[in-house]
């Protein structure tokens, strides 16, 4: 009798535990589903054969395909990701989405495309350990905000430029033509005023270039031209600055260079940015070597200095916006952290590459490539005898002259 009571009790307890446990698991599963469905991100899980195995509610709304339809299909037929207008397959964005800030778009059924950000990660789903979890986010609001920011910067910079030109103009007028009426101290103050306004002008010009880059508005008008002309012109404009710091400043050019297919004005900016950096970050008595190498299908240009160098950990971020090597601010060197970002963008718009190699205390080398003009481009270009030339004054002024 006692034995029977104990047995029944045990069975009851086990049953109760099983029931509670089951309903608990059920509740947990429901909660989990609710959480996943209420996420702002669309969540899609694909198996190793790139077939959709899971699809949350946000994905249904965002992509416009029902879970039942999506499940079992190849991910590329459900999720149409594009970059510019070209479709980007799963294999590609799976590799690049977590690291790059590339702009991907989602092409939805019967509506316009939306800018998205994608993240992917390896995932275990059920017994399948080779799944991939894709999470998508609508980035169109961020993009709108980004555009507003760029518009604002661009407008502010434009509006600042006119009064600033006036301030600079009057200052240099005072310095050039009324200096006899000023004492030594006033002249010194005037020089400082001019240096500061010049820095401000450069900053504003850089901001405008950045806002053009970010709106994809920075145009390069390529034409075949002789890069050595611009290199020599810019080289000689910096010679005085190098002499005042007793720097050995040399330009190495091959005897004959093929014409490059590039925008002379923009390439001039690249030369100016790299050379002025090299001069600024190289101490007195150091050396700066600018070399151009003929690599047949492209030219390789290097700007090498024996300056303070760049710490290894700073190299990957060197070409990003507003990045400045830590410590350079304290050392009193001027700069906005925009020059190299603009430089890289210009080189990339020419389908060229740029990289920096550096050793702390030894110096840095910046190398970029510019494609040479093909035979077709040489024969097609109607302006081939009509080059616009650049004149550079003191390493910053740019005057374009028509040769007579």
């Amino acid at each position, binding site marked *: 009798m006692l034995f029977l009571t104990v047995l029944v009790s045990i069975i009851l307890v086990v049953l109760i535990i099983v029931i509670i446990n089951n309903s608990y698991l059920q509740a947990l599963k429901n909660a989990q589903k609710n959480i996943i469905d209420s996420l702002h991100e669309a969540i899609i899980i694909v198996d190793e054969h790139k077939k959709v195995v899971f699809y949350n509610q946000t994905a249904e709304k965002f992509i416009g395909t029902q879970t039942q339809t999506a499940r079992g299909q190849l991910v590329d037929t459900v999720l149409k990701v594009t970059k510019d207008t070209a479709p980007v397959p799963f294999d590609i964005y799976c590799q690049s989405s977590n690291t790059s800030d590339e702009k991907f778009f989602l092409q939805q059924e019967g509506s316009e495309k939306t800018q998205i950000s994608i993240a992917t990660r390896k995932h275990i789903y059920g017994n399948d350990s080779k799944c991939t979890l894709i999470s998508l986010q609508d980035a169109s609001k961020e993009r709108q905000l980004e555009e507003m920011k760029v518009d604002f910067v661009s407008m502010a910079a434009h509006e600042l430029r006119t009064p600033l030109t006036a301030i*600079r103009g009057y200052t240099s*007028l005072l310095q050039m033509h009324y200096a006899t009426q000023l004492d030594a101290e006033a002249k010194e103050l005037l020089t400082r005023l001019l240096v500061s306004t010049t820095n401000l002008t450069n900053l504003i010009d850089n901001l405008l270039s950045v806002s053009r880059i970010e709106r994809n508005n920075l145009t*390069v*008008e390529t034409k075949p031209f002789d890069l050595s002309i611009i290199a020599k012109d810019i080289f000689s404009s910096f010679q005085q600055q190098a002499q005042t710091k007793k720097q050995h400043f040399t330009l190495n050019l091959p005897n004959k260079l093929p014409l490059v297919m590039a925008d002379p*004005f923009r390439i001039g900016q690249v030369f100016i940015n790299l050379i002025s950096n090299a001069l600024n970050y190289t101490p007195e008595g150091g050396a700066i070597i600018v070399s151009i190498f003929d690599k047949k299908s492209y030219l390789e240009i290097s700007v090498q200095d024996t300056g303070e160098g760049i710490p290894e950990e700073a190299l990957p971020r060197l070409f990003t916006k507003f990045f400045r090597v830590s410590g350079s601010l304290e050392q009193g060197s001027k700069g906005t952290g925009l020059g190299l970002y603009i430089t890289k963008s210009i080189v990339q718009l020419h389908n060229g590459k740029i990289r920096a190699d550096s050793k702390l205390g030894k110096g840095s080398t910046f190398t970029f490539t510019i494609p040479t003009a093909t035979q077709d481009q040489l024969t097609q270009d109607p302006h081939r005898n009509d080059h616009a030339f650049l004149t550079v004054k003191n390493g910053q002024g740019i005057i*374009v002259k*028509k040769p*007579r």
Partner: protein
Amino acid sequence: MRKILIAEDDFFIRDIYSKVFSLSGYDVQVAVDGMDALEKIKAQPYEMILLDIMMPKMTGIDVLRNVRSLPPPAKDVPIFVITNLGQQNVIEEAFKLGMDGYILKSQVSPQQIVDEINNFFTNKESTKQPTS
């Protein structure tokens, strides 16, 4: 004294350029917009026109186009475009319309512009001499 017309709508910039060119020995006249510039060019001869692009009533590009279609000698006046616009397409268009030079005003000091114009006249005279 060389007679020069400065067409620029911003009061301060116009003032700076007139001062610096006067101080450098030029006979300076000013125009406050594109229409004003074209009327003055039609009315009397100049040896040089400095032309802003973004001006009310008529843009510098339109002034350039109009001047180049005037009867000689007015159409052959040297024209330097002075602007803040850095866009290549504006430069290209102005080149096609026959401008003689292009200066980005935010990039250079007023004195550099004067130097540039002085150079222009020196070069012009030196190329003229051997032929005459």
